[in-house]
């Protein structure tokens, strides 16, 4: 056995030796071929490689255009050229830099810095030397094509925001993709130097808006001069996007916001189409289409008024008296207001050992729900809040979409806060105090909402319970017709209950309530004002005068056939009825003017608390 194995091994070794020579021979052939190619014919091939110069010029695709709901273009593209440097064609670095300094009036440190930054890139990748070259630069580069073949123009379409600051937050802006984003594939299909959306629609619908880049290959000679074309793939422009925005209304809203800090949002309450979304102060997205300078960027970022922030969705505020609409809904749904109870307001009331005031120190007297909304009576809602308890308030607020994102198709939306004992336990690890419920009842305390959330909640009241998904995309070339669907839910808000809240809001505007400054004769506007104490009343006396209250107005029209809902929010504007209501009026008025609907003032019966369901005395009192 051992012997056989041994002979077997010898046999294998013999056969193995047969392979040895062929293997060595093959290696010899491969090495000899290298010798032939690299040593004998090396010089010859080096010349061939020198002549083998194909230059690839990237043809960047323009992004898709963006228009408003009536097809008015908002964002387009303009042709522009960048000055590029092809290092492989650069024979004398000093001469090139001298040319750039003298003829293109650049700083040599700037050029050196750009060269340094691109050190890692392949030698045959062009370096961006100057963005968005002017006419003069273009003609200089063209004129020196022969003696400076290393300097070339690269076409790059740039974003043109036709109305500058208008709707800047909603539309957003674009800038060059970063190394990290390329590596992480944040933007599918993005290549180096692609422009990508940063905020707003440009960000959300980046994939719909990007086109397909093309490239042109040209043959160049050994010093980098173009000899002839090789091939060209044209770029394909990105898909068109049409927004729900109404440019005319938007302009009116932005004009009304001039010099103020705040937001205006308007939408069609029936389907959630955003008609207006203005936030002030604003910024010019055109500034980003060429590389924005460090100073300009710092100015935008460090501005205490934060112009980059879209106040309609990216910040949340106390709702103040606007919250009384949510309270009304909660009271009605819980059956506490079924037999139209009244509360006697004497200007203040005591709860849990603390005095809570009404904004009218004299008191409103006996008030029912509709009056309480119209006059914005705090006492009525304190009492309603006490009866409801925080859990039921929170439940109905959530039903109306508070404390959660609306799901609008824009980035960076805030959820706001709708407090509850569980929330307080989780966030602050403390117990809920009954007194807090009283504050929450008039929209103070920890409640915080975005203007868009209020717009959606008010729209739900206007439509009798339709909770839509607000959205800004109306149509997109790349989405087939009918495939664009926005979720809508029906909340448990009975038509009769909604009608009573609307009645109160109608009174507020049309019967000398707090919202009367929004009234337009001949049109049925319903609304509710809000005034948010920024600091406590006592402190306010000593504080600087400019710390005014935040002002709110939320409304819709018409009462029976709602087609537009508007929310106005002004930071430190003062009284909601004085600062916000007139602005809402302007928006409504622009809407009516444009659409000229034949709206007749409804000859609705006078609200029932005037002729009333019996006398005050026979009404069950809440504050007994």
């Amino acid at each position, binding site marked *: 056995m051992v012997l*056989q*194995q041994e002979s*077997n*091994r010898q*046999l*294998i*070794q013999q*056969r*193995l030796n*047969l*392979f*040895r020579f062929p*293997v*060595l021979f*093959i*290696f010899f*052939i*491969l*090495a000899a*071929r*290298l*010798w032939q*190619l*690299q*040593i004998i*014919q*090396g*010089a*010859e*091939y*080096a010349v*061939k*490689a*020198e002549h*083998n*110069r*194909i*230059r*690839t010029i990237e043809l960047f695709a323009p992004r898709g255009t963006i228009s408003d709901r009536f097809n008015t273009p908002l964002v387009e593209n303009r042709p522009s050229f960048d000055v590029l440097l092809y290092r*492989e064609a650069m024979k004398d670095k000093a001469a090139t830099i001298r040319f750039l300094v003298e003829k293109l009036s650049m700083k040599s440190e700037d050029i050196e810095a750009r060269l340094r930054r691109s050190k*890692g*890139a*392949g*030698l*045959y990748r062009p370096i961006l030397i100057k963005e968005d070259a002017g006419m003069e630069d273009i003609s200089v580069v063209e004129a020196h094509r022969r003696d400076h073949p290393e300097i070339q123009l690269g076409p790059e379409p740039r974003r043109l925001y036709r109305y500058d600051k208008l709707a800047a937050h909603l539309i957003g802006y674009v800038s060059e993709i970063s*190394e990290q984003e*390329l*590596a*992480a*594939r944040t933007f599918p299909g993005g290549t*180096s130097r692609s422009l990508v959306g940063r905020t707003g629609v440009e960000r959300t619908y980046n994939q719909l808006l990007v086109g397909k880049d093309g490239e042109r290959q040209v043959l160049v000679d050994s010093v980098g001069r173009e000899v002839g074309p090789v091939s060209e793939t044209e770029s394909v422009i990105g898909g068109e996007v049409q927004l729900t925005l109404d440019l005319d209304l938007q302009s009116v809203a932005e004009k009304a916001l001039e010099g103020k800090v705040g937001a205006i949002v308007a939408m069609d309450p029936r389907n959630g189409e955003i008609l207006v979304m203005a936030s002030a102060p604003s910024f010019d997205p055109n500034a980003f289409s060429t590389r924005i300078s460090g100073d300009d960027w710092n100015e935008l970022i460090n501005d205490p008024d934060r112009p980059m922030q879209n106040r309609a969705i990216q910040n949340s505020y106390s709702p103040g008296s606007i919250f009384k609409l949510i309270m009304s809904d909660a009271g009605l749904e819980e059956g506490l207001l079924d037999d139209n109870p009244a509360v006697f307001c004497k200007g203040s009331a005591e709860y849990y050992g603390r005095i809570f005031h009404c904004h009218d120190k004299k008191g409103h007297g006996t008030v029912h729900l509709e009056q309480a909304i119209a006059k914005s009576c705090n006492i009525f809602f304190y009492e309603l809040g006490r009866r409801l308890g925080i859990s039921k308030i929170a439940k109905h607020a959530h039903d109306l979409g508070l404390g959660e994102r609306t799901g609008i198709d824009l980035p960076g939306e805030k959820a706001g806060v709708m407090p509850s004992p569980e929330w307080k336990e989780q966030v602050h690890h403390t117990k809920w105090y009954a007194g807090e419920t009283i504050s929450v009842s008039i929209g103070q305390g920890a409640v915080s909402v975005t203007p868009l959330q209020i717009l959606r909640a008010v729209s739900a009241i206007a439509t009798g319970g339709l909770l839509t998904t607000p959205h800004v995309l109306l149509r997109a070339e790349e989405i087939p017709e009918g495939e664009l669907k926005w979720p809508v839910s029906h909340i448990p808000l009975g038509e009769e209950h909604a009608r009573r809240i609307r009645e109160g809001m109608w009174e507020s505007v049309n019967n000398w309530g707090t919202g009367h400054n929004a009234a337009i004769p001949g049109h049925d506007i319903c609304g509710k004002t809000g005034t948010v104490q920024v600091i406590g009343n006592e402190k306010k006396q000593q504080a600087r005068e400019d710390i005014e209250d935040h002002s709110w107005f939320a409304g819709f029209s018409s009462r029976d056939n709602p087609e537009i809902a508007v929310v106005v929010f002004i930071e430190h504007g003062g009284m909601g009825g004085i600062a916000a209501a007139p602005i809402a009026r302007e928006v409504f008025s622009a809407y009516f003017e444009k659409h000229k609907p034949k709206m007749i003032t409804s000859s609705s019966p006078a609200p029932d608390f005037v002729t009333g369901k019996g006398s005050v005395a026979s009404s069950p009192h809440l504050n007994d």
Partner: protein
Amino acid sequence: MIKLDQRFILDFDWLWFLAILALSGAGVVAIWSTTDGTSLNSYFGKQIIYVCCGLLVFLTVLYFNYHFFSDFITIIYLAGLAVLGLVLLIGRTTHGNKSWIDVGIFSFQPSELVKIVVIIALAKYYSGLDGEYLGIRELLVGAAIAFVPALMVLSEHDLGTAITFFPIWAVLSCLAGIRRKHLIILIAIAIAAAPIAWFLMRGYRQGRIETVFNPQNDARRLGYQTIQSEIAIGSGKFLGKGFKQGSQGHLGFLPARHTDFVFAVLSEERGFLGSIAVLGLFLFLCLRLFRTARDAKDKLGSMIVVGVLSVLIFHIVINIGMVEGLLPIIGIPLPFVSAGGSSLISYFASMSLCMGIRMRRYVN
């Protein structure tokens, strides 16, 4: 834990190991030079990860006695076939080859590992035979072991990998003892089948073969790749153009420059000095494998090493031959150097298997 014999550890072949590292390093540098980016997601970053995985696999496989693999080879072989079948069903298609399988975050080409399985299976089968020569029955069983998986790989449209099963069978059969008359019959069949194969071949493959004989004929299309590859190598001259300076590679004249044509990139940027060094390292590996096959403790060990050797040489010759314009263009990677994890890790595994055979030559 099995206690490792001290002698076994002392016998670790450092030169062999360094040669493998040097080749992998040359690949990493060439890939770094010719592709963009240095992040973990770039070709460069991924290659470094693959090399690290390869080293882990190397140490793991080294720990096992090759008899351990051969004892379970039936099960392993059948499992290999099952995986290839699975690839046919759910595999991912890349560049027309349906040979990739997605395993979580990365994808893998199981056919690369199946090659090693076939080597062990064939070595096990042949080494168990007693006669001096193979009978016709043994020859056919051997062919079945090698060509069933080869045909499965071929139906994944991966010709390059499929044909590497042929040298395994051919070389191991010769080693096990093929009768002269059988050899003559086989060669006769091959000659007869060549025209049939020619007509069955897809047009572009025919073109690639014609191109070798006359590259200038079709300068803008098929011969183009061969010519550009020759220009790349030739223009590197003695010292090369330097890191990231290869115009042929960077201007896109070389196809698949980080994978199949990486040797052209290396020759262009590192010159004759660099390319001959890489060739020398390969030769060193082959000689080491020859010696290992000769000194192996048993027939099984010798056969496994020769199987690995045949695949290695086949890959080297086909790839470098193709890049140098001596052979038709067939998409197979250069061992250790080309970008890609499956091939690299399989080569680390097979080298480890062979070094293990060498280190166990005195040990029981």
